Each structure stands twice: as C-alpha cells, then as structure tokens.
C-alpha cells in the first residue's frame, strides 16, 4: 500500500477580519497518498486554494490535525517546516511567481541552493529540468523575455528540480490561452507519470480536473464529492 503523505484530521481553517470570523475549511478529513494525481475543483471562494495552502505547509490549520508523512505540523518549528517545504514540496502558481531578477536557469537552480547543492550539481540538475519542460534553449532568458506558457514551464522545472514528493499546482493554467493551457497540463501529466510524484492541482476548469486520477469537489469549505478513476 502506498504511503500517506498528507493526512487531514478534522481540519478547520478560520480567518478573522475586523472581528468577523470566516470559516474557509470545515471538518476536512482527507488522506493523500504517494503517486496520486489529485484534482481539487469548486467554485471561487469554495476553499480549494486554502486547502492547497495547508497542504503546502504555508498556512497552519486553525483546529484539527495535519500530518505530513506522519509528522504533526503543529509540533515542529518554522525552520523545520521550511526544511520540509524545501525538500519535499514543489509549488506551481497561477501567476508563475518567477524571480524577475534571475534567468530561467537561476530560477530553477534556486530551490537547490536552499538544499545546499554544489553549484555544478545545481546547474546540471537545472539544465536537466529545463530540458524536461522543453526549455533547454531558454536557460539565460529572464522571465520578462518569456511567454506565459514558457514562464509556467520554468515554474514546472523549478518545482520538479529537487525531486519533491508533492507538487501543488494552484490554477496553473488560468493565465494561459487554451492551446498553451492544454500543452502545460499535458506536461504536468507527463511529469507526474515520469517522476511518480504526488500532485495536487486545483482548477476552475472541470475538463482538466476530470483528467486527474482522484477528483475532489469542495463547496463552502467542505469536501462534497470524491471520484477515483
């Protein structure tokens, strides 16, 4: 049986603003296993991104327990959480979030620097990752010199370069045209299959979600439906 990477136990996420509480996630019980491709769907404001943020260990649950590989994240320090993110989790954002000052190659190298890889190894692995996403000829381009689709490919390369166990993709195709969106999604599927990495993807696009192995529908902060292929 595959290993459980993430385990949500009765998780709530409540945001407070000007004295008013808003419950973004309600009583989430969910296990994510290695190698799964999970699609999160739901309307805007349903809680998909909040769930992804919790899964990425960048936002703690308000109540309930969240385990990452059997470690209760509430019991570990911020530095330890950072280390888990650095080693195990790759993020892909809707807005790409590439560092504008760095070239494509340097952007991909960056996560490896956090893991203290040598410069030679960083460059070698970053080249390989860029090759995997078809950007081997754009290594020295700055993000501003790349198209939207190319930027997202760089973001993919940056997410996979450290061989993470979990990739979190938040609306990765939302800022792309239909053709590029399809290409990028195909690339994500291919990478997931090649690397046997766990992927959690959230999207408005039901077509994309329908192509994932495990589809979870969220509404008003609750899991309302789940489909496995």
């Amino acid at each position, binding site marked *: 049986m595959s290993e459980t990477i993430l385990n949500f136990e009765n998780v709530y996420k409540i945001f407070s603003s000007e004295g008013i509480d808003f419950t973004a996630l309600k009583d989430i019980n969910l296990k994510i296993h290695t190698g799964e491709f999970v699609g999160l769907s739901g309307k805007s404001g349903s809680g998909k991104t909040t769930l992804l943020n919790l899964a990425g260990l960048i*936002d703690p649950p308000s109540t309930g327990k969240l385990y990452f590989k059997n470690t209760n994240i509430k019991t570990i320090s911020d530095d330890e959480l950072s280390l888990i993110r*650095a080693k195990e989790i790759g993020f892909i954002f809707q807005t790409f*979030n590439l*560092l504008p*000052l760095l070239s494509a190659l340097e952007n991909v190298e960056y996560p490896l620097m956090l893991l203290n890889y040598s410069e030679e190894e960083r460059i070698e692995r970053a080249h390989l990752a860029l090759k995997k996403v078809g950007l081997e000829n754009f290594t020295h381009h700055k993000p501003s010199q790349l198209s939207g689709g190319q930027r997202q490919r760089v973001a993919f390369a940056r997410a996979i370069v450290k061989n993470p166990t979990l990739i979190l993709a938040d609306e990765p195709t939302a800022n792309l045209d239909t053709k590029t969106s399809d290409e990028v999604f195909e690339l994500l599927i291919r990478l997931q299959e090649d690397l046997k990495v766990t992927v959690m993807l959230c999207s408005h696009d039901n077509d994309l979600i329908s192509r994932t192995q495990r589809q979870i529908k969220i509404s008003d902060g609750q899991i309302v439906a789940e489909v496995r292929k």
Partner: protein
Amino acid sequence: MSLIFLKKMFSLMRLKIAIRSITRHRLRSLLSIGMIAGAVCSIILFHGISDFVLKALRHIAAENQYGNMQIAKEKFWNPGKESRKDRMFHLDELKHIKELHPEVIKVSGRLSFFGLVSNGDLSIGGKIIGIDIFGEPNFSKSMRIMSGQPFADNSAKEGMIGQLLAKQMNVKPGDNITVLTNTVDGVMNAMDITVSGIFSAGIDEIDSQVIYMPLPIAQIVLDTPNVDIAVFKFDKLPQAEANEGRINVELKAGDTKLMARSWRSLAVLFRQCEKFYGVQNRIIEGILLALMFLGILNAVSMTVVERTGEIGTLRSFGEKRSDVIGQFVLESLIITSIGAFVGSVGSWVIIQVIHAVKIVTEMPGASVPFTLHINFLFSSVLYASALALITAVIATYIPARRAATMNIVDALRKNI
C-alpha cells in the same frame, strides 16, 4: 551565527540577487550610497580636524609649554607660606632617577620669576622663564619665531620676548631691555639683556607676558644655582605618562620631596579640548548615524513592500526566516560598503582640496592664525565604516524581520 548561515548568506547566488536588486532601483540605491558616503565622509573629516588640533596642542604642551614631564618640589605645585628657596632644588638631586631611566634622554631645568621689564620709557610686569637651550633643543624649534632668532647659547645675556609684549613695549630684535626683580634672598637685582628674537607660542596668555632667557642667566638674576622645575625629555612621548607613577615612587623613596607630573596632567587646556572634541564628535556621529539609520530604514521598508510577493514565493520554497533577513542584510552590507568606500575616498579628496586652498583660521585664545589642516586617519576610516555597517545592519534588520515573519499566504497574494 553559524558558519553554514554565513556561507549561505554570502553564496554566489545570493550575491547575484543582492547586486541585481541594488541595480534594479538605481536611483534609490545611489541615494542610499550617497547618504552613507556623506555620513562616513563627515565623521572622517571631523575626526581629522580634532586630531590635528589635539596633536598641535599636545605638541605645544609636551614639547614647548611643559616638556614631556616636569619634576618639582611638592610645594611648587601646591605653594604655601614657605620661602621661595624652599620650593627650589638642585638638578643633582635627580641624578639617580636619570640613571634608573635610560628612556629619559635629557634633563634640563627651568626657573621662572615675575619682574619688571623696562625699555627705558616703559616698565611692564612680565614673567621671565629661564630655560636650558641645550637641554630643551625642541623648545625653540617648536616656537614660531616672528623676527630675530633664538638666543645663541646658555651664556648669552639675551632673551626672546613674546610678540604681544614686544608690541606693547615697542621693542625689536637687537634692542636692550632691563629685567628687574628680587633675588631669592630678597635683594633687588637687575640685568640688561638684548632682545634676540620675538616669538609666538600661539597662545595670548604666553605671548603677552613671557620672556625666555638662558637658564644660567636667570640663575644669576635670582642669585641661585637651583631650579624650580626639572624637565625630562623621553625617547618617546608615551613613556612620560607610562613612567609617571614609577618615578613618583622612586622620588618618594629617595626622600627628595620632589614630585613628577607628566605633560598630560599639567596640560589642562589639552585635557579640556580632548574632552570637548570627544563629546562633540560623539554628538555629530550620533546625529549623522541617526539620519543614516532613518534613511536606510525607509529605503529597506520600501523594498520590503515592493518585494512582499517575492518573499512569499521564496518562503513557500522553503527559505527560512533567517535567510530572508540575511538576504536584505547582505544587500544593505553591499550598499553600505560602497557608501563607506565612496565616503572615505571623498574625505581624502576634500582634505587634499582644503590643503591646496590653504584655509586660514583662528583658534579661541590664539594670538596667530593658522592654516587649517585635516589629518586623514586610517583608524577613522575603519571606525566610520564600522559604525556605518553596524547602523545599516540594525536599520535593515527591523524591516527585514517584519518581512521574514509575514504570513506566507498574505505575501503570496501580492504576486497577483
């Protein structure tokens, strides 16, 4: 701070990001560099001016006015009702001290008295000081001779007269004046001496009342083989202060009732100036660094706001809080180092310009103007640069810490 953290902080990638961040906002970076350079330059210049003034005052005090060290009867320093004779001593009493201290290269005597100085038409009260021209060779060298020359030897019935006193008496080199006073036994005595030269010590108090004459001539006038003060010249000036305590112990052991005082303990004006410049420089440094602190705080705060999204992205990748702070501090250190370098070079250039222009100024209480000189001190460069770096690190740490502790999700939203 661990070695790994430092290694990480100064890694090539971080340096690359830091340099690109600095060049991304050129105007802001240039303003910051200018502000830091201004502060560093000002500190170096203020230190250079005070160093020049203090060195000049020290030279006057230690080589001219007091000598490196003075030894006199305790009653000379704290006079009571005793007779003049009781406050004097013979230089032979210090032979054993000289033997114990090879670092003392010359011992000479001084004898001073008040008397009437007359040119035939006018008589004015003056202070006559007998000095040993061979024992204190630097004495006349360190004095500004306005006209004429120092007296030739210890047997010449000559005197050097302060320029303000000479002006008041309307005398010039070659003129004769009469010195009238009581001998140590209370008998009236007078001697005609020739004015060999007119000097300026640069201090009104001296220039308006002092006449220097050879020590043996002063001893003839006072009819005594003794002196008031013995002046010790050391191989190196710091030896005077270093040996003051030891010499006093040796003098006490010899039952001489003599007491040694180094130039510093005698030079009240020097000590006051040293204290004044110390306080003044600290206040100026405080003001400059406060301005620099606020400037950097403002610049880094703006950068933090602009880079909030970027910080969120980096934190989501696993960048630690300390790494975020380290990145901002690194950028600040680079800017401050450039600013400190520019400020140091700038101060050197300004000093060269000031020296070339030859700005003439006056000191309070000084009888002659002097050309402003600023000492360029490497120690001040290091001091000002270190202060700037410390200030920059503190000013950067505050907004950087705020950036590092911000909620990652909130920071990521700024990318949209």
